[in-house]
């Protein structure tokens, strides 16, 4: 399986602020990867580094066999949809279709007309006058019309109502059905992306916490509950992602290294959401307790 996206200790600093640090990920071809993490975790930064819109401060980034480069061949193979859905507001979808035809070698205008026609989105209206959901659909259709090999989407679901979200995810699933297209999609909405994605990249504190197929992420993690007790023993074999203790009970999210032998623990499977939240709140705890000092991150998702 060839990796379409590979980074090695990738880092991005903006003046004094570290937006992304020590990021090593690997996304094989055909995966639909969910890029999740709290605000300011470096999701946007990572996507911008993958497109070549930003240049790394350190480390290496490799997309489709080389670092992102200012070459028409590379640019034609990467589709990017930025969070703010940037389109020329005064121009219509039709104008954007012609625009794409002039700027891209493998342009597929028919696909845009079909997709937008099916969604009843006007081709002649200035895109600035469309609703946020419609605008996202126009932008996605335009991005897909490039027929990219890698599709990078930054929070495309954030502005959408549930219905528009479903339509959007439907469009994505259809585009990915060939198995050729590799997608990385950043989002907060774990429930939504769980239906679509088969791969997970979890960023927190500007660092990669997880990067794996969702199946194996689920297989590797367990929720343990038991009487309040010392967790040192369990921590010796397994990795405790997060622990909560009340007066009587301790519950742990654990990354397994083999089976849990101690019968005092009740072992349950964890949902993706529980795992993701576990890693994210672990991060919060560390921050609030001040146990581990990590590089600060900037807000706003740059």
């Amino acid at each position, binding site marked *: 399986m060839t990796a379409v996206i590979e980074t090695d200790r990738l880092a991005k600093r903006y003046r004094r602020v570290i937006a992304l640090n020590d990021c090593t990920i690997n996304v094989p071809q055909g995966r639909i990867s969910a890029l999740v993490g709290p605000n300011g975790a470096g999701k946007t930064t990572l996507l*911008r580094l993958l*497109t070549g*819109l*930003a*240049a790394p401060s350190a480390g290496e980034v490799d997309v489709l066999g080389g670092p992102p480069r*200012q*070459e*028409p*061949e590379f*640019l*034609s193979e*990467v*589709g*990017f949809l*930025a969070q*703010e859905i*940037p*389109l*020329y*507001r005064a*121009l219509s979808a039709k*104008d954007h279709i*012609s*625009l*794409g035809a*002039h*700027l*891209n*070698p493998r342009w597929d205008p028919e696909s845009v007309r079909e997709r937008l026609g099916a969604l009843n989105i006007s081709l002649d209206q200035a895109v600035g006058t469309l609703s946020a959901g419609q605008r996202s659909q126009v*932008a996605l259709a335009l991005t897909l019309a*490039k027929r990219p090999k890698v599709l990078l989407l930054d929070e495309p679901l954030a502005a959408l109502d549930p219905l528009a979200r479903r339509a959007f995810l439907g469009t994505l699933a259809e585009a990915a059905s060939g198995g050729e297209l590799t997608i990385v999609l950043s989002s907060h909405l774990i429930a939504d992306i769980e239906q679509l994605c088969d791969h997970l990249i979890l960023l927190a504190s500007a660092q990669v916490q997880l990067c794996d197929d969702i199946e194996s992420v689920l297989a590797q993690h367990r929720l343990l509950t038991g009487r309040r007790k010392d967790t040192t023993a369990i921590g010796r074999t397994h990795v405790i992602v997060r622990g909560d203790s009340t007066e009587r009970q301790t519950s742990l999210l654990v990354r397994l290294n083999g089976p849990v032998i101690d019968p005092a623990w009740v072992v349950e499977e964890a949902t993706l959401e529980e795992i993701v939240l576990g890693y994210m709140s672990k991060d919060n705890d560390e921050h609030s307790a001040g146990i581990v000092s990590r590089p600060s991150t900037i807000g706003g998702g740059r």
Partner: protein
Amino acid sequence: MSWFTWRLYRNQSALATGLFAVLAIVLVISGLHAAAVWHSALARCAKGACGGQIGSNLSLSNSAISTLVVATTAVPLLPGLFWGAPMVAHELETGTNQFAWTQSITRRRWFLVRTGWLLLAAAVTAGAVSALVTWWSGPSHALQSNAFLANRFDVIDIVPVGYAIFAMALGIFAGTLLRRSVPALAVTLAGFVGIRAFVAQWLRLHYMTPIFVSYKLTSNFTPPGDYLGVSQGILGLNGKPAVSNYNLPSINGVPIPAGCNPNGNPLACLAAHGYRGYMTYQPADRFWAFQGIETAIFLAIAAGLLGITFWILKRRDA
């Protein structure tokens, strides 16, 4: 990319063309009128009816039109202000650069094509207005030999094209550097006015070594035809020019002769004591050299600004 550029500026181009058409109609009507007045005055003089002088008080056009012509000084600035400053800045503000720069064209091509068309648009706009104004100025130039006056030199022939290209480059540069349209607009305006004023008021006088003429103080000296006066004053007895008016109590540190009352009219008195007047100026036959030098200066600044802009654009994260 060219189609893209055209699509983005289509409406604004139509507006600019409309404004130009209005200006053209006004200037053509006024210019034809001025030419008619001029030719009838010439005919009158040919019959000896004007006493050998056409008369500088001949009214060729009304003052509103003359003011309008002087106001075309601002024309070369406008494309740079409204198209140049937002070219990169507005894309960054709205995030559309992320759309444009992730299509299958390099940033280099995006910049070159878009800048190229905007420079051409600026040159054509300024060139067309300048051509109109140059034509319109024909009679007035023949009458007053004023081609070197700041209000006239700056709006005729080729310098407006140089100014327009400079303004466009400055606008694009400021927009790229500041990433905001409005501050970029302000910087473009201030930079254009500042540099233009510096060149017109000071630098232009020194493109070539001026011609030096000394003359009897009791007579007056005016160079023939168009000229750009650089300095004028009294030549001291040591032969050194004193850039001064005539009413100083001393000339080059030497007190003026007793009896040449500085508050009266001392010229005849000074002349009697051997003082002469002098003038340095740029003569009429240097007009095209000066137009060429000034255009070249602004084109060179523009090239420098665009070079820096491209370097910033390539280096900086989008």
